[in-house]
């Protein structure tokens, strides 16, 4: 289990996380939602072991994340940054190889890379230069790099942490990305994903953690967490929640295009 307990963290005099606790179980997909500045990315960074929180503990399968050396940690969790970058003209295959530890034999590494590329429908681009891929494909190649990192560790389950993986993608790529993450969860990985799109969260996540001003304000299924009153309050804009045909909540902001924000306040 990936578990953050009583996390407090701030930068300077600003408290970004105030007593946050979140759990991700193996095989579970948890969406982290909330307005800009709620502390989602900071929580993800703390849970990824980027830095130690000022207070509180993060445990991954019972061990403190900041106590594990980076190479051991990399076998237990993989992280996809919001805007992954690459400064060299690697091929897609070479990019994925970056996710695989040195001690994995080359034949196994190649097999893992090919399987993962097939899973994300990029096998036909394997030998292409990453820099000529479209934005969506490049993002998916980085997602594959993160997936292959977990696949290469011989542990039964790892944790996949995705920071707004759909932010710069068109609708079809958003759905494809979420399905890939969903599949990872079905295969046993714990998935923690920061999402701005509440409908994607409601459709794909087993559980939603809603954050506001550094605190967790709700933690449960999409139906329990996404209520019109709660969302309208924390996003400070009018939001309607309907029931979709599949029984999941459908979150619809009221656009009211001719009203200026200042007038509403």
């Amino acid at each position, binding site marked *: 289990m990936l578990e953050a307990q009583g996390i407090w963290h701030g930068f300077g005099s600003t408290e970004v996380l105030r007593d946050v606790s979140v759990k991700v179980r193996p095989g579970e997909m948890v969406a982290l939602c909330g307005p800009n500045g709620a502390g989602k990315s900071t929580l993800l960074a703390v849970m990824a072991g980027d830095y130690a929180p000022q207070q509180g503990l993060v445990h991954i399968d019972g061990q403190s994340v900041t106590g594990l050396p980076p*190479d051991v940690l990399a076998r237990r969790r993989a992280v996809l940054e919001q805007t992954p*970058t690459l*400064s060299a*003209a*690697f*091929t897609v295959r*070479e990019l994925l190889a970056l996710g695989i530890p040195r001690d994995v034999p080359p034949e196994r590494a190649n097999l893992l890379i090919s399987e993962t590329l097939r899973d994300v429908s990029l096998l036909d681009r394997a030998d292409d*230069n990453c*820099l000529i891929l479209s934005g969506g494909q490049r993002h998916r190649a980085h997602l594959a790099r993160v997936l292959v*990192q977990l696949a290469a560790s011989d542990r039964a389950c790892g944790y996949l942490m995705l920071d707004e993986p759909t932010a710069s993608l068109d609708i079809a790529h958003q759905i494809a990305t979420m399905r890939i993450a969903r599949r990872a969860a079905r295969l046993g990985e714990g998935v923690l994903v920061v999402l701005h799109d509440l409908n994607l969260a409601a459709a794909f996540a087993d559980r939603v953690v809603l954050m506001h001003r550094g605190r967790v304000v709700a933690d449960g299924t999409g139906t329990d967490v996404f209520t019109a009153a709660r969302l309208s309050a924390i996003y400070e804009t009018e939001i309607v929640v309907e029931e979709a045909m599949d029984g999941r909540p459908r979150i619809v902001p009221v656009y009211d295009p001719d009203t200026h924000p200042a007038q509403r306040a």
Partner: protein
Amino acid sequence: MSETSALPRHAAARFAGIPVFALLGAALLIVVFAELALGPVRLGPGDLLAVLLGEGEQGPSAILLQIRLPRAVLGLAVGFGLALSGCAMQGVLRNPLADPGLIGVTAGAAVGAVSVIVLGNYFVGDLPAPVRPYALPLGAFAGGLLVTAFVFSLSHLSGGTNVAMLILAGVAVNAIAGALIGAMVYISDDQQLRDLTFWSMGSIASGNWMQVSVTTMLALAAALGLLTMGRSLDLFQLGERAAFHAGIDIEREKWRIALMTAIAVGAVTAAAGPIGFIGLVAPHMARLIVGPAHRNVLPAAALIGGALILGADLAVRLAVPPTEPPIGLATSMIGGPFFLWLLMRRLKRGGF
């Protein structure tokens, strides 16, 4: 940040593998042979073989063993050290324009070396005898390390490095180093002044075996260390945070690379003076041939760097015989325009 100007759909148009390294190795061997054979006194392959087997006549033997061989060995150490340091700095800083000379590491090393040359009278005598031959490279190492650490921490602060920042930092460091060296020159005596002037133009001719062996040992040790950093340098291309997520200890790797770079540049600069642009040109040529993966770029750049240094040395020696203009003039004359071309290319692509 791409290295290839026209992006091919398939990046497979690269030549990595044993044949390419064999070719590069063969090219290097040919240059080494030319370096040993050519000069005011020409030596044939027969002479070389005889001398190397310890059976040569006195004349060729002295020329080869006392002049050309130390020169060739020092040249190789300089080429390997500078090319690999350039590769490593470009990799860590994710910046293809990083070069030990441009960003001031060489200047830092030069300040260290000049300080030992000028102020050495005061303290080198007090050092224990086994340490004395290392005083010059040690001084250069300390100066180089200081600058490397500074530049790496800049890249950490700015969360990556843009070219302008790096070059400007280099301008500042070079200016400070220039002032410090100027101060040393001002207080130096006539003999020191003469030594400094020739040293500062960069030359691999100074070689006596004592100096050459110290330099070569240090540069080769650092070079071997840098050759093992391929995977880390590849991971650095994802950015420091993602590289950490993929399993490397960023701070430790940066320190390692900074140390080895400073040892290589320090040793090389102490013995041969500041030689510019090899750390820029060799890795670029290597990437054009073998692609971007550092496990290939590093050895290829080392072979190319060695060949470039000896080639430049041959060029200046054969240009106006029997005088021997310093090699640093040749590398800067080729490297300067090359650097400008790289800058223009980036500007055209709108990349900074």
